[in-house]
């Protein structure tokens, strides 16, 4: 029973031919493939480089930020130096004014009392 059943199945399930033109249809699709493949390849390459590009951008951003911070600090230092110099200049002027205010008095003192002993 099983043997005849299996024989019948073999007979019923014989492979079916897709037709004479099947090979031509496959080859036609194949000839259309290169363009499709070429179109598909670049995006894959781009995707492969994206992590490297992101990493490079990150490093560049860090370096640029570091450079900007450095410049900012140098600029602040320059301004502080100028402010210090200005402050020293103003102080010096004030001291000069004060000295002049005091100095003439010291100069007149001996003149007002020339030599009391003589």
């Amino acid at each position, binding site marked *: *029973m*099983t043997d005849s*059943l*299996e024989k*019948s*199945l*073999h007979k*019923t*399930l*014989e*492979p*079916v*031919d*897709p037709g004479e033109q*099947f*090979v031509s*249809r*496959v*080859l036609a*699709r*194949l000839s259309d*493939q290169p363009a499709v493949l070429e179109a598909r390849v670049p995006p894959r390459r781009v995707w492969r480089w994206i992590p490297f590009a992101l990493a490079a951008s990150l490093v560049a951003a860090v370096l640029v930020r570091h450079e900007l911070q450095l410049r900012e600090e140098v600029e602040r230092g320059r301004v502080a130096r100028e402010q210090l110099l200005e402050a020293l200049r103003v102080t010096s002027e004030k001291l000069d004014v004060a000295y002049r205010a005091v100095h003439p008095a010291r100069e007149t003192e001996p003149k007002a009392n020339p030599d009391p002993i003589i």
Partner: protein
Amino acid sequence: MQEVAKSVNPERDDVLERARAGDMQAFGALVRMHQKSIYSLGLRMLNHREMAEDLAQDVFLELHRRLPTIESLDHLGFWLRRVATHRAIDRVRRLGDVVLTDLDSTTDLPVAANTEDYLWQRQVHRLLKQLQPDARAVLLLRYQEDLDPTDIAELLSMPLNTVKSHLKRSLAALRLKIVGGEAL
């Protein structure tokens, strides 16, 4: 048997090598060698002529890309059946049988010699439609492709006992239909 065929037909051995080298005529010859088998697997798995054609074409296009990895004509046959069956199982699972047309309505099937054969053919196709995709593939690989259960197990990456139980259950179901004389 295959060894004899190889020794008496050296051109056949050469086909794979030429196809690998880019000879489209040789590739066409490879397609011609296996088109019936791959198309029929698709047709009987999917119950749909156009989808079967589409599936078979996709499998051969994939083959063209993978030619450098194909070691021999035996490997080629195994590879084609493996890829076609797995793809067909995936499509059946994804689409379900609901959207697929009845195989009986297609004109691709071999014409039955008499009424008895025709009725038997219908019973077998009905049984195939009722089977789960895995079981359907096992039955087709066994009786359409004439593969041993061991080869089927390897091809489907399935335990041998599962293959045997699928076959046993499918045959039992078919026998039950015959004995029970289920309405056609």
